[in-house]
C-alpha cells in the first residue's frame, strides 16, 4: 500500500517539475519578447546585493593588491637579473646601431665624392690596421692587387689626400700617409693669383702638421691658403686637397720659408678610404649661355656656339 502511495507521490512530483519547467521555459520567451516583466525584481535584488558585492569586491581587490605586491617582491630579484641582462643586450645593440649609422654616414660621403670626382676611377676600401711605429705613419687597407690596387697609387677620402700605396699585396696594401716624414707630395697654392709650388712632407717633430717646403722668401703665400696637389711627379693627380696654411715660418738657411699645414683629412678618424686606380683629365664644365638683356635675345643655339668656338680656335 505504502509503495503505491510512494509511486503516486513520485509521479506527482515529476509532473509538478515538468509543469514548472515548461512554465519557466515559456516565461523565458515571454520575458525575452518583453511581454513579461517581474515587478521590482531586478532593482530589488541589485539594490540588496550591491553593498555585499561592493564589500566583496573591495576585499578581493585588497587581496589581489597584497598578493601581487608579495609576488612582485618574490620575483624582483629574478626580474632585476633579467632586466640587467636586457640592458646589457640593448647597450650592445645600441652601440652596434651607432657604429652602423656612423659607417653609413662615412660611406655616403665617400660615395658622394666618388660620384663627384668623375675623372678618377676609385676603389673604395677600409683601413684595417695602423702601423705601430713612432716615427712613421703607415696604414694598412683591405684592398690589394686583386682589386686593381698597385704601388704608387694615390689614396684619398672625400676630404682630400691621404697618401700613396707603397706596397700592394693580393688583398691588402700598405699606404704611406701624407704625415710620414718619408713622403713628399708636389703641391701648389690653389689661389689663382699665387699658384706657388712646393713640396709637402711629413714633420717628424709634430706628426699632425706636415710642412710645405721649398718656398722662396718672397713667394705669395699667406695663412689660410688652400694647398692642392700639383700633379708633378706622376703619383698624385692634380687638384686633390692637401690642407690649409696654418702658419708661415722662415727656414733656418734664411733663403727659403716653409708653411705649416693643417691637413684636409682628419687622420685621427681615418676609417674608409678610396684608392685612385686610374685618373684622366677632368671633363670641362658645360658652357652656360650668359643671361641676355630682355629684348636683345639672339636665337643662336648651343651647336652654333660650339661651331664658332672651333672656328676661332682654327684661326
Amino acid at each position, binding site marked *: 500500500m505504502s509503495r503505491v502511495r510512494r509511486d503516486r507521490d513520485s509521479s506527482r512530483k515529476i509532473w509538478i*517539475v515538468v509543469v514548472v519547467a515548461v512554465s519557466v521555459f515559456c516565461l*523565458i520567451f515571454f520575458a*525575452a519578447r518583453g511581454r513579461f516583466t517581474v515587478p521590482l525584481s531586478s532593482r*530589488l535584488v541589485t539594490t540588496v546585493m550591491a553593498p555585499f558585492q561592493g564589500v*566583496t569586491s573591495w576585499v578581493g581587490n585588497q587581496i589581489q593588491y597584497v598578493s601581487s605586491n608579495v609576488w612582485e617582491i618574490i620575483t624582483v630579484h629574478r626580474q632585476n637579473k633579467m632586466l640587467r641582462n636586457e640592458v646589457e643586450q640593448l647597450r650592445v645593440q645600441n652601440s652596434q646601431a651607432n657604429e652602423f649609422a656612423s659607417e653609413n654616414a662615412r660611406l655616403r660621403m665617400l660615395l658622394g665624392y666618388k660620384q663627384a670626382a668623375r675623372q678618377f676611377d676609385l676603389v673604395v676600401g677600409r683601413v684595417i690596421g695602423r702601423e705601430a711605429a713612432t716615427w712613421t705613419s703607415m696604414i694598412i687597407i683591405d684592398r690589394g692587387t686583386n682589386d686593381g690596387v698597385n704601388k704608387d697609387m694615390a689614396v684619398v677620402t672625400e676630404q682630400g689626400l691621404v697618401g700613396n700605396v707603397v706596397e700592394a699585396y693580393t688583398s691588402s696594401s700598405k699606404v704611406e700617409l701624407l704625415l710620414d716624414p718619408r713622403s713628399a707630395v708636389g703641391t701648389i697654392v690653389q689661389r689663382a693669383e699665387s699658384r706657388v709650388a712646393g713640396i709637402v712632407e711629413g714633420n717628424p717633430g709634430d706628426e699632425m702638421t706636415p710642412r710645405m717646403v721649398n718656398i722662396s722668401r718672397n713667394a705669395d703665400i699667406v695663412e689660410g691658403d688652400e694647398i692642392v696637389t700639383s700633379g708633378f711627379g706622376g703619383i698624385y693627380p692634380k687638384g686633390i686637397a692637401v690642407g690649409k696654411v696654418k702658419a708661415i715660418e722662415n727656414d733656418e738657411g734664411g733663403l727659403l720659408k716653409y708653411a705649416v699645414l693643417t691637413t684636409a683629412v682628419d687622420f685621427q678618424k681615418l676609417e674608409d678610404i678610396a684608392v685612385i686606380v686610374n685618373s684622366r683629365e677632368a671633363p670641362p664644365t658645360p658652357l652656360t649661355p650668359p643671361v641676355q638683356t630682355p629684348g636683345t635675345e639672339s636665337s643662336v643655339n648651343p651647336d652654333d656656339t660650339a661651331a664658332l668656338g672651333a672656328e676661332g680656335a682654327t684661326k
Partner: protein
Amino acid sequence: MKSCLIWGAVLIGAYVLQSGFFPLLAYHGISVDLLLLSVMSFGLLKGSKSGVLMGFMAGVLQDAASGTFFGMNIFSKMIIGYLCGSVANRVFKEQFFLPICATVFATLMNYFILAVIVLLLGYRFNLIVHLRLVLLPMLLYNIVFAFPVHTLFCWLCEKVKEK
C-alpha cells in the same frame, strides 16, 4: 525555517563571491559558477525536491541580479538540481570523484541548455569558438572548485542537521 535562512544566506554568499570576488581570477571574463556548484552539491546531498528548490532560488537570484533573459538560469538550474537530486540515493556522497564527475555533467548540461535557449531566442554564434572560449575555461574552473564546494556543503549539511 532556520535551515531555509541558512541555505538562503549560503546562496547569497555564493552569488556575492561569484560576482564580486571571482571576476578577479577570471580568464577572458569566465570564472567559476558557484551557484551551479551549490545547486549540484545541494541536489546530490538532499535529493531532487530540495535540488529543484535550490535550483529555482539560485536561478531567480542570478536572473534577477544579472539582468539576463529572465527565467533562463531558473530553467537550467532547476533541471540540474532535479537531475542531481534524482541520483542522490544511489551514490556515495563523500567520494572524491562524485563532485568532479557531477560538475562535468552539470556544466555541460547547463551550457547546452542555455545555448539552446539562446538559439531558440534567435541569436546565432559560432559554436566551436564559443566552446573553446567559454565552455572549456568554465569547465576547468568548475572542476577545480567542485570538491571544495562539495566538502563545504557536506559540512554545512551536518551542521544544519545537528541544529
